[in-house]
């Protein structure tokens, strides 16, 4: 009986709910069903705000604030605006200054925090490289990755930053950076060819002790260090530590900053559009060319000079696989790098407020898509070709996708990103095989292929896939319009500009890196002794084992 009553009661509730439901939906009809808005209602005329209006702005009383503000409604009001004259109170001028400062503050915080993320990539590189090397070289490989941060930073602070950004001129999102205004240029074909910047030595020279310059320095410095740490991977397990220090210093002081000036510092590559009508000039949003290809190409030069590890090739020149000691470190490092890349690419807007800065969402998604497409492409390639989804190559595929999307991330759409990433994933596998078997250049971590080959692919891909939808203040590199590739209607000028950048990397940067490292070889010696190499570099070079409590097989 009681059961029957309960069921009846439930039934009545359901009936009531069903009868009420349509009514409640009817209270919020879809927008299309709403009464049409009044036809072309005249827009209200803008009313000029006066200082008097601002004087009357409601502010919380001191008593109210003294009681605390648990819901946050009393914090951040007109009373927090900095006033120039306390007697006048808030004026229009104060308000405008506060708005301007807020924009720059947002951009400072954005650029600094993304720079911190890029700095953390050093940890990712360190454990990827160490995991791919043998345990007997763990201390040496980790220490190179650790030390390159300081060595590169000092070189860049002393002279590298001045060469790269000393003539960049206005960086609007960061408040102008006006002290960076002296670019040395020559005239070629009747046009100025910017070669290097001149202001900013020690961050004190010619007014560069400046808040905007400091933010720009931090962001650019961590990029430079990324390029330097690429080389430590390809030369690992046989590079003399002293040679590594000198080579890294030269790269941070000269090789990297010179190309970075040409691409980002107002140099001749950036101005190929303005001076020679080649699209928007050489474009490289976050550094596939400037950072990764420079690192990868220098890695090739150093690896050629230094030669392969003992045992890598047999007497006929056939390559032997030398396995790394910790795949867990490798894949964990890849994840750290993928995380840091969200600083690398979106941070390259140098702001989250201002012209086109809201593209950060698109840049971040493009980065994510291309990275995973690269990992997927490499995994499928290895699985199809060798029967197993190789873990280290899948990790390298992820990095290859990220490297390739770095330059185009600000100019392409999601479909373009996935295509670029997939191609990168397959390309890195083919390139590793080519470097290993045809060139017979020993690269323990695949840095030449991940960063060099795919850095160049990323640069080229802009000339193909840039969709013409990005708009960073209506122009790029001083040329009106959006960056557009040939698949979206460009006449090929953008592709030519990109290819000139590629030849500059392959021709000029390689030669400069090679000469520097040849000099290091002559004066310091690049390679450790055969005895030290066979024993493992931890004791002979560093004086301590990476894993002292483990018995290691050489």
């Amino acid at each position, binding site marked *: 009986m009681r059961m029957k009553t309960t069921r009846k009661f439930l039934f009545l509730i359901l009936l009531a709910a069903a009868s009420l439901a349509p009514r409640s939906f009817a209270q919020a009809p879809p927008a299309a069903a709403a009464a049409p808005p009044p036809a072309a209602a005249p827009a209200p005329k803008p009313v000029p705000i006066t200082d008097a209006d601002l004087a009357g702005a409601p502010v919380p009383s001191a008593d109210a604030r003294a009681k605390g503000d648990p819901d946050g409604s009393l914090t951040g009001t007109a009373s927090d605006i900095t006033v120039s004259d306390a007697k006048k109170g808030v004026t229009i001028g104060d308000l405008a200054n506060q708005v301007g400062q807020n924009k720059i503050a947002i951009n400072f915080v954005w650029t600094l925090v993304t720079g911190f993320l890029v700095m953390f990539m050093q940890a990712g590189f360190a454990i990827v490289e160490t995991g791919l090397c043998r345990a007997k070289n763990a201390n040496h490989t980790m220490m190179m990755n650790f030390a390159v941060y300081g060595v590169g930073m000092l070189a860049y602070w002393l002279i590298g930053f001045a060469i790269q950004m000393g003539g960049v001129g206005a960086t609007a999102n960061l408040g102008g950076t006006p002290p960076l205004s002296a670019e040395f240029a020559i005239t070629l074909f009747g046009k100025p060819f910017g070669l290097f910047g001149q202001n900013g030595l020690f961050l004190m020279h010619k007014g560069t002790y400046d808040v905007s310059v400091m933010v720009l320095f931090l962001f650019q410095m961590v990029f430079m260090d990324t390029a330097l740490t690429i080389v430590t991977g390809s030369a690992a397990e046989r590079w003399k530590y002293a040679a590594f220090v000198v080579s890294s210093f030269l790269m941070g002081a000269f090789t990297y900053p010179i190309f970075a000036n040409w691409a980002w510092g107002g140099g001749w590559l950036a101005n190929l559009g303005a001076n020679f009508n080649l699209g928007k000039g050489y474009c490289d949003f976050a550094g596939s060319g400037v950072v990764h290809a420079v690192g990868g190409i220098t890695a090739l030069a150093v690896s*050629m*000079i230094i*030669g392969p590890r003992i045992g890598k090739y*047999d*007497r006929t020149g056939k390559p032997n696989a030398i396995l790394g000691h910790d795949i867990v470190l490798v894949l964990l490092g890849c994840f750290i790098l993928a995380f840091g890349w969200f600083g690398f690419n979106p941070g390259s807007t140098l702001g989250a407020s201002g012209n086109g800065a809201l593209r950060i969402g698109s840049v971040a998604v493009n980065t994510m898509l291309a990275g995973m497409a690269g990992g997927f492409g490499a995994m499928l390639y290895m699985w199809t070709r060798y029967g197993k989804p190789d873990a280290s190559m899948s990790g390298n595929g992820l990095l290859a996708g990220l490297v390739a999307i770095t330059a185009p991330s600000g100019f392409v759409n999601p479909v373009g990103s996935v295509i670029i990433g997939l191609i990168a994933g397959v390309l890195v596998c083919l390139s590793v095989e080519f470097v290993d078997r045809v060139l017979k250049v020993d690269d323990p971590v695949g840095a030449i292929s991940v960063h060099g080959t795919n850095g160049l692919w990323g640069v080229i891909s802009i000339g193909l896939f840039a969709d013409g939808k990005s708009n960073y203040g209506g122009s790029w590199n001083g040329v009106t319009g959006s960056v557009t590739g040939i698949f979206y209607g460009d006449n090929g000028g953008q592709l030519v500009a990109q290819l*000139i950048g590629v030849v500059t990397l*392959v*021709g000029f940067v390689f*030669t400069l890196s090679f000469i520097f490292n040849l000099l290091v070889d002559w004066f310091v010696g690049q390679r450790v002794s055969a005895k030290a190499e066979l024993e493992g570099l931890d004791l002979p070079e560093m004086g301590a084992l990476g894993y002292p409590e483990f018995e290691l097989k050489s």
Partner: protein
Amino acid sequence: MIFIGLLVIMLGFVISVLSLALHSVGAQLAVVLFGLAVSLYGIMGVLNRAYLKNAIWKKG
């Protein structure tokens, strides 16, 4: 051979820069690609070959 290799690599770069004197995008593209091929030949065909002649695995 190392010196010749470096000269060839730089020659490719110079060729691509000289393409800027041309006015047709198609011609510029062809010249830049030629410059790229020259630089790549310098690295792989000349410089690397010089190093492989004395490769470490041939010594032992």
